[in-house]
């Protein structure tokens, strides 16, 4: 049974012109509605950013076309559609620097590669210091970044006020602006477009995308898995990839492997649209007193987020006290937004690992792979993760870029504990 390929309409100025005369029917659905088949080379579980990117690279870079992406809900229903769209590579540890810098470089050219406008906006990511004591830690991180060849600038107060006029330099403040660490190439990417763009490109290469199809079990013979049980019946698979952010702990339980993961909620919220105010990303992490990050979407809404809610949950219902804390922080940074109303609030489930870094490894069987544990930083990792993980799945050997993220690091002690907080996903 050969599935019909959807004729992909390449997006271009010429296509726009053609569509103008051909009418609305010129445009095709982004991905095909091809039905689920009985057997695949690779079954990817989870149609989020990482799952779709892995499927895309399997098909494009490694010629594996018999790939299905199975999704329990709708494509992009999880964290790829719930994050605050920030991309950056301002990390301290070398392993994370190389990985996230690889990802940021891919973001810079991904719209062209996918022929889909992801609205990558290098508007800068500004980590603020509101006391003298916070600046050295930012300077240390900036120096580490520069040693790794990543752009970083330490801004003093005057430079910070020039770069972010919205901070209102002449205004009296309870906590004075001291300085900031700026990564200019950091910024935002339209998150939904990432899911749609990868889905469209993967589908055009023959990848089947199956929504409303939950995986309920893994069937195995001896040392290898043979397929997955789903709500739509059994699907045979040579290899299985789990990219089920927020529910990977439960996948571990399903396979009888306890993982170093707790599932926590992270909230985000957006204000009513206002005129252009903030043309960068502001992040303030107060040691022990909360966190706020804030940027302005192209629609004008102020997108805000902060700490995890603080305890395990699958409910996707954020706690009021965290919303309050985030909003207080935002108003502290940008006092003039005090009268702006919150439009929407939502939460996503996060795989929090015991060192805050991801897990990319095999799970129990030689042909079962898990791409998980992205904590609250999975969105920015999608392009690098998809490319590297596809290579791992296709060749059986993890590329150097993701070798540090293997599961055995928790046994050997080679942890990647970026904030240095020990084996706890939350320290509030």
């Amino acid at each position: 049974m050969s599935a019909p390929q959807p004729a992909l309409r390449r997006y271009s100025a010429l296509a726009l012109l053609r569509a103008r005369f051909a009418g609305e029917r010129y445009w095709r659905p982004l991905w095909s509605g091809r039905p689920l088949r009985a057997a695949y080379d690779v079954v990817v579980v989870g149609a989020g950013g990482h799952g779709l990117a892995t499927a895309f690279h399997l098909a494009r870079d490694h010629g594996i076309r018999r790939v299905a992406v199975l999704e329990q809900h709708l494509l992009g229903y999880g964290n790829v559609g719930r994050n605050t769209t920030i991309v950056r590579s301002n990390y301290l540890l070398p392993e994370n620097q190389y990985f996230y810098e690889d990802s940021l470089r891919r973001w810079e050219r991904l719209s062209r590669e996918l022929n889909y406008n992801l609205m990558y906006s290098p508007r800068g990511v500004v980590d603020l210091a509101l006391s003298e004591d916070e600046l050295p830690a930012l300077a240390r991180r900036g120096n580490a970044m520069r040693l790794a060849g990543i752009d970083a600038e330490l801004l003093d107060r005057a430079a910070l006020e020039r770069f972010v006029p919205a901070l209102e330099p002449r205004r009296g403040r309870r906590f004075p602006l001291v300085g900031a660490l700026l990564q200019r190439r950091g910024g935002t990417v339209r998150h939904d477009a990432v899911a749609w763009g990868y889905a469209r490109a993967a589908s055009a290469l023959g990848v089947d995308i199956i929504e409303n199809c939950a995986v309920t079990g893994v069937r195995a013979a001896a040392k290898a898995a043979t397929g997955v049980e789903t709500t739509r019946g059994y699907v045979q698979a040579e290899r299985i990839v789990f990219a089920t952010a927020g529910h990977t702990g439960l996948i571990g339980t399903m396979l009888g492997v306890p993982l170093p993961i707790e599932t926590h909620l992270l909230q985000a919220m957006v204000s009513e649209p206002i005129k252009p105010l903030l043309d960068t990303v502001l992040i303030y992490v107060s040691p022990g007193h909360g966190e706020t990050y804030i940027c302005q979407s192209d629609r004008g809404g102020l997108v805000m987020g902060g700490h995890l809610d603080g305890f395990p949950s699958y409910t996707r219902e954020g706690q009021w006290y965290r919303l309050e804390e985030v909003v207080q922080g935002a108003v502290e940074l940008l006092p003039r937004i005090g009268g702006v109303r919150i439009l929407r609030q939502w939460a996503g489930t996060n795989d929090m690992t015991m060192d805050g870094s991801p897990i990319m490894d095999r799970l129990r069987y030689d042909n079962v792979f898990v791409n998980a544990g992205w904590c609250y930083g999975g969105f920015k990792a999608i392009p690098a993760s998809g490319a590297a993980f596809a290579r791992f799945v296709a060749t059986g050997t993890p590329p150097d870029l993701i070798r540090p993220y293997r599961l055995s690091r928790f046994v050997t002690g080679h942890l990647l504990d970026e904030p240095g907080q020990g084996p706890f996903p939350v320290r509030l």
Partner: protein
Amino acid sequence: VTRLHCPFCGARALREFSFHKTLPDAAGGTAFEQTYERIANAALSIEHWQHLAGCRAWLLVRRNPSTGEVLEVRLPDGRSP
């Protein structure tokens, strides 16, 4: 879940409490397992909390993480206050 019932203080706002870690179903296991491994269960989470902004008592909490329902809050050693 918006409140927890502290055995000493009664029902108090959740923000007064601080979550520490989830516990395995059974006590025991190696130090590695105790430190790093978590057994994910969508219907039951057994956790250590502390009433940090209150009486500072350590608590054992049993919750359903899929609904947010609190099933039990007690002292870790089972004593009543």
